[in-house]
């Protein structure tokens, strides 16, 4: 095989791996959007808090991010549900502008809090159990990236299974489809909304934990993911978990290919152009409801 083809395939594979993380972040975002039609601008900050949860477990008690991962998920679930009850509950029927700026305010607040509590420094986790490289045939992968990709698949699969196969999941889907009808059928809509925020935040938090072994940790880190997550959600179809999964992989591939062909500085521009193409040509995305 020619060396340039090898590089191309290697690049594509790394695109798929980062795409799986994008998918997990987008699953959380699309869930909140699908269930209650609110776009969460503070979603990247949930990811940031997941990273710090991993970091402090490691820095204070030498607990590996992979061990603290369930704890991080629970912590972010509780935070997401709490934010719903304290803030979001009040703006469900507010104009879209109020909704946008409420979650935008949350974004600024969390960044400020992270700076205040943990300083604006870049931090990293040096000696996780996931270190080094793995060779699959002639393909080379960083172990952290490979584990993160696998973890993202597992968690996305779990969310999908929960929505498809459990009673609570079905109630959540019903609330997304028609909240008035769901309420009439005896579904506690408020609890479903809180659950959507909890799961949404937990997905982003787990993505943060998985990233924490190979990505710098700092208060503004969420900014790197939020726009990409919006694109992924739109591409997959607003509200579709399965769509977000496949869209994440596509976005990851587009990003690395764009970086490969045009230079890394145009990665985000290409991903955003993809958003415009999708919403203009196929507004319901890959798997969204018509």
């Amino acid at each position, binding site marked *: 095989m020619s060396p340039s083809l090898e590089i191309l395939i290697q690049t594509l594979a790394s695109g798929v791996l980062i795409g799986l993380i994008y998918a997990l972040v987008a699953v959380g975002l699309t869930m909140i*959007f699908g269930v209650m039609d609110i*776009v969460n601008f503070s979603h990247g900050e949930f990811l940031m808090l997941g990273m710090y949860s991993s970091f402090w477990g490691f820095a204070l008690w030498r607990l590996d991010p992979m061990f603290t991962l369930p704890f991080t998920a629970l912590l972010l679930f509780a935070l997401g549900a709490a934010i719903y009850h304290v*803030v979001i*509950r*009040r*703006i*469900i*029927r*507010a*104009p*879209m*502008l*109020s*909704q*946008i*700026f*409420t979650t*935008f*305010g*949350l*974004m*600024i*607040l*969390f*960044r*400020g*809090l*992270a*700076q*205040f509590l943990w*300083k*604006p420094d870049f931090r990293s986790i040096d000696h996780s159990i996931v270190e080094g490289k793995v060779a699959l045939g002639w393909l080379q992968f960083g172990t952290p990236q490979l584990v993160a990709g696998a973890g993202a698949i597992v968690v996305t699969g779990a969310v999908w299974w929960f929505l498809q196969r459990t009673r609570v999941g079905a109630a959540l889907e019903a609330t997304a489809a028609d*909240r008035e009808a769901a*309420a009439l059928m005896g579904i506690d*809509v*408020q609890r479903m*909304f809180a659950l959507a925020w909890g799961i949404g935040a937990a997905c982003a938090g787990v993505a943060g934990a998985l990233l924490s072994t190979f990505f710098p940790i700092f*208060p503004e880190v969420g900014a790197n993911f939020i*726009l990409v997550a*919006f*694109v992924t959600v*739109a591409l997959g179809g607003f509200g579709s978990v399965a769509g977000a999964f496949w869209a994440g992989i596509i976005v990851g591939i587009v990003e690395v290919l764009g970086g490969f062909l045009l*230079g890394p*500085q*145009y990665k*985000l*521009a290409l991903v*955003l*152009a993809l*958003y*415009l193409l999708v*919403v*203009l040509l196929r*507004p319901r995305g890959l798997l969204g409801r018509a």
Partner: protein
Amino acid sequence: MPAAKRVALLAVLALAVALPWLVANPSQLNFAILVLMIAQAGVAWNILGGYAGQVSLGHAAFYGIGAYTSTKLLLAWGLSPWLGMLAGGLVAVAFALAIGWPCFRLKGHYFAMATIAIAEILQIVVTNTDAMGGAVGLQLPFANEGWAGFVFNRSKLPYYYIILALLLVTLSASRLIERSFLGYYFRAIKDEPDAARSVGIDLTRYKLAAIAASSFLTALGGSFYAQKELYIDPGSTLATSLSIKIALVAILGGVGTLSGPVVGAVILTAIEETTRTVFGGTGRGTDLIVYGLLIIVVAVFYPAGVVGGLRDLGRRWRGPGAAREPLPAEGER
């Protein structure tokens, strides 16, 4: 207009004209200029985002186009910034129509996010184009001191009156639109798009009219920024954070009201400057915490903004019959 309101308006105008003699030092004058700059952009945003209800979170694109057009024309051909300002407005209109045509079929969140995407792409392209100064930005010549050159190094006073005049022009345009048939069409598009379409209003055409006026006026503000700072870069004129701030002053003061963005600009800039001077030096994000909390409180409890909130309060005070129906704040139960 009631006589009392007219008197109040004249008093505010007189205060604005006399303000430079009331402030104690140049930094306070600079603060006043900053307020007027963001107020002007907010009023311009309000034509599209407030009256016509098309929420743009990418207005920095128009601001940046204004700044970069007048600056490039000045640097390349020595064109007067006054003419460059006009040219910037026209380029912004062309750009706005080009993106508005496809994007106006998008609704709500989809449109808002499309505007973010477009402005971000523009910022990335300019950042990576050497002819536009790249990430470093463009430096404007200091030497053209005076009204012809639009440069005032010795005293910032002319800048204050220019931006005050620009704000008044923008407010007048906004009021003219509000009172004309356009204003009614815009409100119909915002509140009852389906009904508007069914009575034969060409929605896209009037949305394009709104974005044309809004982008033109926003770009004028961008050119002013370039002349005042004599230095522009993508981070200060094209960033999404600027787009958000432009929309935020309108929301804070009251979307779709004439004076709302001006009130919002005063409040936001005052809070920003205060938190920065009181907490900012610590570099610990306290200013962000206050800023974020404030946005949440206003968005959650005063969805109609300060001006809208005061108006409701006034109605309620005058009599229960006049009170507007309050927004339902609670959830489903």
